[in-house]
């Protein structure tokens, strides 16, 4: 565990050992790449899963025909990839890459080009502090994350909320009414639900603060769930966080930024080809990040079942299993996202605002107050 002050001390006082520092940097870069790969793989796979699950819910097959000529001829695997639409993923990506990349004449060029990056990069940055698993080292549990900082919860929430600037920049710079309306809705919605999200996390932090010195660390929060998970201890907090997360990630039923029925396609109406692809991946990346946060906060992190932890004696197998557990949980959460999307209709804008300010915020405050009273006794 490095605190911010530790890093400062290390930089200013200690003489640098360059080879060790270089190795450290290399390891950190590899870890970050690992975290980014994990998020991007899940973002890609959730696109396929979205199409498949929605097809199944609607009684269709979904994409099952796209085939890469040589790969499709491989026995068993080829047919498996084809039937499950995994090559459709490649085709979609290639389509985004190879399409003409138009730059409309009426847009604010700089912000228009910066917006897709702004929507994707916060996800990848925030992914670096998520503990995707844990391993035992010298009798101590250490997180499998690229950066283990003591305020990672605040960091993740703050950075992932930056993603909405992508939508706002896109909407503003597009110089067109529908993107603009989409962006305004997105920003209003994020402001409303950010409050609920923050307030629903506080009881968890208070709970962890009993046993840990740095309760704002995602690793400590997940570690504290070796016994009962927080979704069992604090169901209301979990529910509020879940609803706020749906709103933050702009997923249906809170699909205000896009709402293609009334706003063409919302903030990315003026975008095409790869820039649209970045928004698309950013949206799914946000889902992955939101799921990871929910898992760490309420679903026991890398612990397989409530009250069960991977034992220390299993060593690296335990670490791998913890990573695997986390991955399975992310997959389950993504399925929930998709499942909810293809079940519920979209809220009207005023309903979203009413729910946010008149229902969720008072509930979150009451929840927070209740736990405040409960913990102080």
């Amino acid at each position, binding site marked *: 565990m490095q605190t911010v002050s530790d890093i400062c001390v290390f930089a200013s006082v200690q003489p640098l050992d360059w080879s060790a520092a270089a190795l450290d940097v290399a390891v950190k870069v590899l870890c970050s790449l690992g975290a980014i790969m994990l998020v991007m793989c899940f973002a890609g796979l959730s696109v396929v899963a979205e199409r498949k*699950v929605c097809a*199944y*819910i*609607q*009684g*269709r*097959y979904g994409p099952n025909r796209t085939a890469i000529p040589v790969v499709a001829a491989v026995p068993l695997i080829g047919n498996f990839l084809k039937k499950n639409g995994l090559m459709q993923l490649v085709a979609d990506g290639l389509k985004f890459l190879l399409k003409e990349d138009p730059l409309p004449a009426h847009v604010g060029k700089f912000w228009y080009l910066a917006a897709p990056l702004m929507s994707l990069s916060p996800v990848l940055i925030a992914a670096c502090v998520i503990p995707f698993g844990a391993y035992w080292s010298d009798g101590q549990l250490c997180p499998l994350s690229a950066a283990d900082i003591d305020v990672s919860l605040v960091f993740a929430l703050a950075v992932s909320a930056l993603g909405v600037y992508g939508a706002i920049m896109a909407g503003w710079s597009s110089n067109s009414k529908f993107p603009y309306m989409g962006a305004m809705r997105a920003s209003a919605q994020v402001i409303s639900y950010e409050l609920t999200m923050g307030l629903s996390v506080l009881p968890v932090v208070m709970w962890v603060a009993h046993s840990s010195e740095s309760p704002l660390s995602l690793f400590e929060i997940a570690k504290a769930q070796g016994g009962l998970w927080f979704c069992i201890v604090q169901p209301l907090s979990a529910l509020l966080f879940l609803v706020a997360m749906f709103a933050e990630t702009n997923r249906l039923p809170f699909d205000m930024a896009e709402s293609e029925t009334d706003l063409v396609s919302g903030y990315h109406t003026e975008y095409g080809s790869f820039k649209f692809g970045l928004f698309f991946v950013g949206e799914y990346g946000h889902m992955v990040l939101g799921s990871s946060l929910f898992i760490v906060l309420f679903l026991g992190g890398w612990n397989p079942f409530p009250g069960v932890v991977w034992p220390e004696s299993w060593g690296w197998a335990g670490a791998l299993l913890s990573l695997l557990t986390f991955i399975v949980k992310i997959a389950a959460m993504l399925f929930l996202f998709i*499942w*909810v999307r*293809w*079940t*519920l209709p979209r809220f009207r804008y005023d309903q979203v605002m009413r729910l946010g300010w008149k229902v969720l915020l008072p509930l979150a405050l009451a929840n927070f107050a209740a736990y405040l009273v409960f913990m102080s006794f």
Partner: protein
Amino acid sequence: MAIIVERKRLSFWERLYLPQIVSGLFITFKNIFKPRVTLEYPDQSPVLPVGYRGAPTLVKDSEGREKCVSCQLCEFVCPSKAIRVTPGEISPDCEYSYIEKAPKDFKIDMLRCIFCGLCQEACPENAIVLQNEFSINGYSRGDFVRHKCDLYAAGGVMPDKIMKWKKVRDNAELGGNR
């Protein structure tokens, strides 16, 4: 006159909204395991109903005689002007020369055809029949114009109980007293 509809007040349970969401989720979840309704078209073909109106074709009778006598009624009735008949005479050395006329060429432009079936209704000889073909493709406009040979190849044989022209011939051989 405005009709004021009394809106039922929702109960607390209904206003919670969550039970409804959960029941909705269960409905969609059950749907995942239901059989698919998709017809995987090129691999599976649809079951066509009786009386299906596909592409129009020309048919022959059980003796292999082409039924069309090029009366051009189909051409006149065709609302989209898809049919063009070039009438011709049957050569005198042919077995059926007493029928006098047969089409020299019979063209149906499948880009114009609207599959209404009026040609089939108008035909006094039951020579033009809309059959089951529904997948009509080509690489150029010319590919969609079907000529006489294509139409007969697609039509095949349609047996005829009455055999009108056979009776005409028999009567003629009996000296015209029927």
